[in-house]
């Protein structure tokens, strides 16, 4: 048997590999569902900004020796998500600038704190893991899997239940508000959920690569699909297949998980882009 197939068989017989597979698949599907509305609302960068905030929060949690880092990271990221979305609505430029400002500040503060106060010996390694995700997937615990499962179930439920309202608010917020849909609630809920998804995804692909999970499936789907439902379903399928294939591939050829998934999604986007061009002719 070739070496990479042996690697694959060996890894898949271990429980943590299966955990990672399930977690990544679910989280990337959730990210892609929300990605559609974020991309269309011109909020593609929110994923990037929030992941940097989450990195900063993680650094604070590490420095303060908080055992359950989620307890600090999650609320802080949620607050920033709501802030960014609110600021973004006042004017477009402000929203852009707000995200840029918040994300670099969080990144800088996070790195600063880790460097100054962390007692651990391998700062560079820790920072690298937080930014680019684990180089292998052994780090996932059973509790991570459970949290991911619950959060993803909630996200999918939210999305299905509010699907029609999300469409209406995304397509034309003024019309939705004028005819009695509470756009503010939908927007805030979206912000909260994207923050949760990003914190979950940070463990898997690292904070620098998260926005790929959010924007790539939706952008790829938009090349070929012509209805909102089509784009939503298609982007979920793209997210699912590329994350599963990405993990298997990373095990086989021994590459970092997050980077492999994102590279795969970029390839999918390029393919769909070309298909879209051909179709339009």
């Amino acid at each position, binding site marked *: 048997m070739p070496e990479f197939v042996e690697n694959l068989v060996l890894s898949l017989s271990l429980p943590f590999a299966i955990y990672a597979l399930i977690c990544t698949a679910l989280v990337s599907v959730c990210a892609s569902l929300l990605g559609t509305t974020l991309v269309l609302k011109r909020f593609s960068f929110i994923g990037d900004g929030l992941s940097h905030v989450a990195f900063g929060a993680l650094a604070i949690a590490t420095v303060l020796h908080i055992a359950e880092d989620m307890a600090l990271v999650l609320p802080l990221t949620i607050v920033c998500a709501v802030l960014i979305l609110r600021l973004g609505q006042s004017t477009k430029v402000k929203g852009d600038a707000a995200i840029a400002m918040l994300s670099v500040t969080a990144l800088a503060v996070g790195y600063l704190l880790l460097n100054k106060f962390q007692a651990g010996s391998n700062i560079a390694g820790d920072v690298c893991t937080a930014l680019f995700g684990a180089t292998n997937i052994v780090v996932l615990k059973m509790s991570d899997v459970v949290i991911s499962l619950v959060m993803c179930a909630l996200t999918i439920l939210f999305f299905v239940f509010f699907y029609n309202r999300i469409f209406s608010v995304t397509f*034309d917020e*003024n019309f*939705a508000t004028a005819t*009695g849909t509470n756009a503010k609630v939908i927007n805030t809920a979206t912000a909260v959920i994207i923050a949760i998804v990003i914190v979950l995804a940070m463990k898997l692909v690292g904070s620098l690569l998260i926005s790929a999970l959010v924007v790539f499936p939706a952008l790829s*789907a*938009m090349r070929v699909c*012509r*209805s909102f*439902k089509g784009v939503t379903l298609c982007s979920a399928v793209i997210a699912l297949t590329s994350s599963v294939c990405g993990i298997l591939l990373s095990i086989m050829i021994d590459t970092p998980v997050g980077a492999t998934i994102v590279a795969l999604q970029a390839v999918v986007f390029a393919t769909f882009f070309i298909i879209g061009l051909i179709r339009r002719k």
Partner: protein
Amino acid sequence: MVLIDCDNLSVGYGGRRIVSGINFQVCDGDYLCILGPNGAGKSTLMKTLLGLIPPVSGRLQYGEDFTARQIGYLPQESLVQSDFPASVKEVVLSGCTGRLGFRPFFRKSDKQLAESAMATLGITSLKNKCFRELSGGQKQRVLIARALCATEKMIVLDEPAAGLDPRATDELYKTLANLNRDKGTAIVMISHDVPAAKRYASHVLYIGDNPFFGSASEYAALESLSAGNGLTTAGSASATHKGVKRNA
């Protein structure tokens, strides 16, 4: 029945007034054209009518059994996203979203309403087309159908003819006139098209330095009067209107 009654209304953003002293009424079945120069506050007035922003001062009263939510709305063309992936059916059906209440999905009656709205606007054949691939005139029809799903009582349109070619503009005006006549839907339209306003509207509201509100025929009479006097600019024309309205 009076649907909207404005008395000395001032509108603006964040307490800063853009235009004040607006007086007008919209009744069941009216066709009101709001005219005025750019930046006069027409769109701001419209957002106030829709309940998107609060009035700065004055009185804005809705008729009995009528609320801001029962106003269908057609935004300025530029505000609708041009690359949005959505089918015509999805866009029209989204007009029913306000009636969802606590239900997650649309009812059969909502879907039937969307079908009949599409039939009214003659866009049933476009049902499965992608919204972003339609022509300007077709897009406007889709958005009117969506507004009809939200309400049949009143539709507010913000410069619907902007970006349309003359034929599409003409068709749009006819469609609106038919809606107004057949379904009794009150139409409130912001426009720069004075001839069309005189032709189709029942009432005209002019917002600017010298406000005017009255029937379209009054407005037309005044305009020809001022033209006879050699006054052709909108401002001076409306100055005459105001004077004549007082005399009337």
